[in-house]
């Protein structure tokens, strides 16, 4: 596969949030605010790239019997690292994300990527794919957060929007509103791709592969 294709796949065709519907938990939790969504996306991006790099580099040293242990060790290691660094240098972002920052460790996007991509591809390809997926994850979160924060709270990145602030749709701030917006954005992506979500998502994958 061409390098650009590897990179772009995670952003559009296999967007983890909007197409593969991975990591739906943080998607619903942090998308009431675009800043939180961006921080979440970037934190996941960093962990994803670093862990894909390590897992891919070590894939020949660590056999399949040990892969889950190694993958989890590496991913949680980087999550802890990011958590410490954010706590020290971005305390506000750290407060905003709270427990969901820690929960990146069990995010399906990462576990899936480690198994499906990093263990099966060359280091450089894995990193490229991680970059694409990370950016796709960030964009997906951002898209959902954009709708939820602007219409649900009448603000953008915490800054009040004159007219909309008076006509908030507070349902969008709650979990059901999160599902609603996620569904609508997914429908939009499906319409652009001109294919049902599950079909595009699965098209390039072998049967039986876990979606985590």
């Amino acid at each position, binding site marked *: 596969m061409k390098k650009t294709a590897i990179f772009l796949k995670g952003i559009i065709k296999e967007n983890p949030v909007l197409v593969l519907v991975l990591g739906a938990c943080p998607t619903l939790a942090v998308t009431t605010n675009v800043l939180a969504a961006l921080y979440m996306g970037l934190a996941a991006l960093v962990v994803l790239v670093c862990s894909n790099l390590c897992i891919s580099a*070590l894939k020949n*040293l*660590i056999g399949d019997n*040990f892969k889950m242990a190694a993958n989890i060790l590496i991913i949680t*290691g980087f999550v802890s*690292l990011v958590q410490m660094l954010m706590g020290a240098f971005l305390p506000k972002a750290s407060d905003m994300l709270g427990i969901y920052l820690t929960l990146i460790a069990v995010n399906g996007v990462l576990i899936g990527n480690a198994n499906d991509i990093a263990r099966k591809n060359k280091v450089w390809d894995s990193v490229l794919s991680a970059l694409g997926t990370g950016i796709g994850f960030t964009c997906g979160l951002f898209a959902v957060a954009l709708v939820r924060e602007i219409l649900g709270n009448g603000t953008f990145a915490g800054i009040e929007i004159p007219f909309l602030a008076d006509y908030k749709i507070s349902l969008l701030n709650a979990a059901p509103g999160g599902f609603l917006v996620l569904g609508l954005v997914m429908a939009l992506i499906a319409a652009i791709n001109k294919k049902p979500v599950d079909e595009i998502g699965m098209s390039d994958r072998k049967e039986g592969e876990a979606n985590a």
Partner: protein
Amino acid sequence: MKNNVKSAVALTVVCVVVVGLLAVTNYFTAPKIEENKKAAANAAFVEVMPEGEGFEEIALPENAPATVTNLYRETSGQGFVAKLVTTSQYSSGDMGITVGIGTDGVIKGVAITSYNETKDFGEYPYSYIGADSALNDIDVFAGATYSSMAFKNAILDTFNMLIANGDISEGQKSAETLMAEMLPVIFPGSCNASGLAQLVEIEGTGFTKAYATGNDTGFVALSDVDGNTVVSVMNAFGVVKCYDLEGNEVSGPVDEVKSAFEVLADKNADNNIKNAYKAYGDESAELTALTDVDAFGSVTGGFSVTTEENTYYIFNIKTFGYMNELMEMAVVLDSEGKVVNYRTVTDLILHGEYFTEHGLKDKEAYLSQFKEVTEDSYSDDLAIVTGATFTSDAVNDSIHSAFDAFKAVKEAE
């Protein structure tokens, strides 16, 4: 088997590397994270004590006033932070205040944590920063509302508690502060209903400080007599009284005060005459200006008219109403001290809806209540209208001021 051993070794190495990396990161970030956490927890306190490092709640002393709800000590001994809750007569809601007071007895910071009526309150609380218990640097002549009185009292409560506990020492009150505290007693006509003197500083050669009252009722001066500060007050009738800073009447620069301010006092004369005529109702009457009336109420001038049947006394009055707006009235009394006419010069319904909303639908009916009353038959309930307290307090004050002035005239006769 060989592969498994290789994998196990590799996994162990990865494990060690990850742990090492985390340990190093933790070593560098842990203190910073701790600092951030502390800063977040202290944010509310740091706002009122910017130099504060840590805060711990301490038990309220036994003498704690009801206003103080929580007391905290700055852990490095810089001072105290108190959380206060007070109510003002004006607002239905409580006012939440956080104040930081250093061990040097100076206010380091103030925060209003909750209050409904901030519109007429504004920046006033922040003027307290840097003041000690004497509140010298506070503009004592401003902040007329109930809100600021409630605020001031809550702050003073805190100071008194800490002083009584020996935590801080008392601030030295300046002559101006002592004077302002004295004025509600020695010159009530210079103060609004909250007891705050409303003065305008003026030029006064020979005096340390000279002020005109904001409602043309007279003058106040601070002067130095043989090393002692003397407060002199002069009313609208040219009567001068002098006091020391403890409020005892003393001999002082009576003539100097009189000659310095008499000229200024004259500027009201024309206006007073005009309004006195209107209140009396007979343009052809011959008015005699009253002088040397020993009354320090809200009277800006007075006249007598002698007719064949009676002698009438007309007093011009200015009082402070809502938001310290001046309200001007004229009261006519007969020789028996009975109110013959009560006339408002400035429209009484300064804040119309507010006044009428509270049961005062008919201004004429309200004012006619004062006809025929004497000092003995008058009761404050006639004037005071609940919910329109500023305006009706001013009306009440005007009637008392008229009676006081009348009494002084009679005593002089």
